[in-house]
């Protein structure tokens, strides 16, 4: 789901209540006690890795949603793609792709983008039918997404709708990472002198910067894969030292 225009990108609030500096182990223990929905309780029970775990050893899962629109209040999820990975290996064997019957109307505007039609969703399961399995895929892993707010907000909106609870988890945002890397480039005097623009942090542009191949966009599974490869490239480039801790890049 990487079709946000510039305005949408700016309007989207970044790091909300939980984020950098959070003690995730403690947070998970606390949430485990509070959670009521069994699969969510189970998810928290599994815990999360400690902040000093090397990036190279961190179990990850790249996640992407296609949605009916941009507003989590009025739009909903139509497909979920995910693939298990580490920064060394992406495992296509452990990938999943669901088409979801959206809770809200499927808008023509979004159909054009993700190509999922009314007939595709007619027999598709609703979100609550895949929720437990989705949580199983996420448990014990750090989520990787390009522009994570979309995934986090739509996921929480759907959870709230179906089970009346929300979820928190550590997450790596490849878009935020790229913004961070490119900021250091952007500010040089020479670049401003040359009038060079801020490098684009759209997924396709980020990928080409690392010489990753072009993939067609807006299939949740392909986008999850594209995001997974981007993280591998970012880490290989900016954190070549195998001992860098996961806390350097998660939030």
């Amino acid at each position: 789901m990487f079709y946000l225009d510039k305005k949408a990108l700016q309007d989207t609030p970044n790091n909300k209540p939980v984020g950098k500096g959070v003690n995730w182990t403690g947070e998970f223990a606390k949430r485990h006690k509070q959670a009521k929905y069994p699969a969510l309780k189970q998810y928290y029970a599994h815990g999360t890795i400690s902040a000093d775990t090397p990036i190279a050893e961190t179990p990850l899962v790249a996640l992407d949603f296609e949605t009916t629109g941009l507003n989590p209040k009025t739009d909903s999820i139509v497909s979920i793609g995910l693939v298990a990975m580490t920064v060394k290996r992406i495992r296509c064997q452990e990938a999943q792709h669901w088409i979801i019957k959206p809770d809200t109307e499927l808008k023509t505007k979004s159909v054009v983008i993700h190509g999922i039609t009314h007939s595709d969703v007619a027999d598709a399961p609703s979100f609550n039918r895949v929720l437990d399995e989705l949580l199983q895929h996420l448990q014990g892993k750090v989520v990787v997404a390009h522009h994570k707010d979309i995934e986090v907000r739509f996921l929480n909106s759907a959870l709230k709708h179906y089970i009346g609870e929300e979820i928190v988890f550590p997450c790596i945002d490849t878009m935020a990472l790229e913004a961070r890397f490119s900021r250091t480039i952007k500010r040089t005097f020479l670049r401003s002198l040359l009038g060079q623009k801020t490098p684009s942090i759209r997924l396709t542009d980020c990928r080409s910067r690392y010489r990753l191949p072009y993939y067609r966009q807006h299939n949740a599974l392909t986008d999850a894969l594209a995001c997974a490869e981007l993280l591998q490239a970012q880490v290989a480039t900016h954190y070549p030292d195998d001992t860098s801790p996961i806390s350097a890049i998660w939030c």
Partner: protein
Amino acid sequence: MATEQVEVTDFLQRHKPFSDLAAPELSHVASGVEIAYYKAGSPILTFGQDNTHWFVIRSGAVEVFRRDGELYNRLGEGNFFGELALMRNRPVRFPVVALEDTLVYLIDADTFNNLFDNDEQFADFVEVEDRSRLRESSPDKKDNNALLTVKVEKLIEQLPLILPPHTSVQDAALRMTEEGVSSLLISNEYLNDDTSSDDEPVIGIVTDVDIRSRLVANGLDLSTPVTDIMTTQLTIVQSNQYVFEAMMLMLKHKVTHLPVLRKSKPIGLISHQDILRYESQNSLFVVKSIFNAQNVDELAALKDEVQTCFSRMVDEDANSQMIGSAMAVIGRSFKQRLLELAEEEFGPPPIPYCFLALGSMARDEQLIVTDQDNALVLDNRFEPKLHDAYFNDLANFVCDGLDRCGYTYCKGGIMATNKKWRQPLKIWEQYFTQWIDNPTPETLLHSAIFFDLDGVWGKKVWADALNRLIRKKAFKNSRFLACMARNALLRTPPLGFFKDFVMETDGRQTNSINMKRRGTAPIADLIRVHALSVGAEGRNSFSRLNGVIDAKILPPGRGVDLRDALEFIAMVRIRHQAFDLEMKRVPDNDIEPEYLSDFERKNLRDAFQILSDAQKYMKYRYQPGRHL
């Protein structure tokens, strides 16, 4: 649970050997892929490590090294590596390093081995190091015959004339005359593309002979419908049958015309004359035309037929030895006919002589792009003042004639027109003795050309005597052989290909490669040195190599490898020239990698590697002072 990644599947589907896999297998491979990213300069496989995966390059490029750090190969998108360790279940022998930022798809050992064990085509393609693959790619087709290997459809020149049953014989005859054909087909489905009916597509055939014997001879009216004189009970041939089968059908059913069907649609009509005409384009026919030519103009006019003959042999999958010797026979015939004509023009020779062919023609390895290397051996009674004017005229006549027939003048002046190469036998013996006893850089180059010599006209026994002299003097002559070996190392093969470039061993890249200079010539040079060292008879590289193999001076298996390498390189060169001819271009020896298939690239790479290894061995074997 495996969910297929479309981008992975699409990519694999575009590249061999995955493109040959059936959909379910491909899907299975794609859904099990693992993916890894490597920064430029970072190691992917290190020497001695265990390898559990087969690597397919999705984007970027890598370099493969030998253990000693020498560059072995450079691979790009769609290429693969790591299969050797998997096939042999051994630790990695060739380390791999990312040359550019590289994304690789990894296929696990089980999936790889499964494909490798169960899919012949897949295994063939992957088995880079197994030299037997090269052998299979250049099979010996000794009993090759045009009629046996060419399909009927090759003979079809135009669509058949098809008429409806009610046509009168007169109208039919008019149409046959208009179209310039000697036969026509009668069909119920005339002009009807709908093949749903169960009727036979063709109900009869009418030939010139039928009109004569069944209409005119019987005094029938011209308005008689063609159905009255047509032959039913048709003998039919399918377009994908061999010309040989068509000929057998004609003989068996005593017919002279065969309708050709493709998917039950008539697409042509072939006659026994078509078959005869096709057969007659072979080299024997060209040779016959050469000897029938009455003057140089007529000889020069045969240039096109030589090219047609060459292209046809390539079409028929003849091997390089067949093509090389056919072209050499033709070249020799041109020389012989020119000498006959010259003797008619200038009168009989004052003293006996022998005209020599040198180089590729003498080795029976001539192709279509070739210059003339020749020389004259004169009787020892030769008196320059008395005789040389005659032989000068004769040499000029022949060399000018050869040039007009497509054999360009030798740039190095190695022609009988050059006084130095128009000498009595005793001088030639002195030349050769001196070249062998006291080699200089210049005479070594001469040795490489003149020591492949063949008498084509006159006192051919002198050519045999010179060959014997060379064999005797060079045999086990370690000093001379060391010099020849050093000379034969001047031309080396490239490393292989990378993207659309030729890769040199030092990492340089060029746009094209001269297949003669970098391929066939260095192999011929190398084989000549070995052949001289063991006194092997024969001038053709393949027969020399057999002698070398019999003498057991090469490490086991290397001789056969070398033969396959020569055959493959020669065939790539030959096919390239045939392609140039087909495209109406002037054929040359320069090959651009972009026109090579993946299969050819891989095999060429193997062949270059074999040549390179053979050169290293030659360097070692003929070290100065080493006892042979």
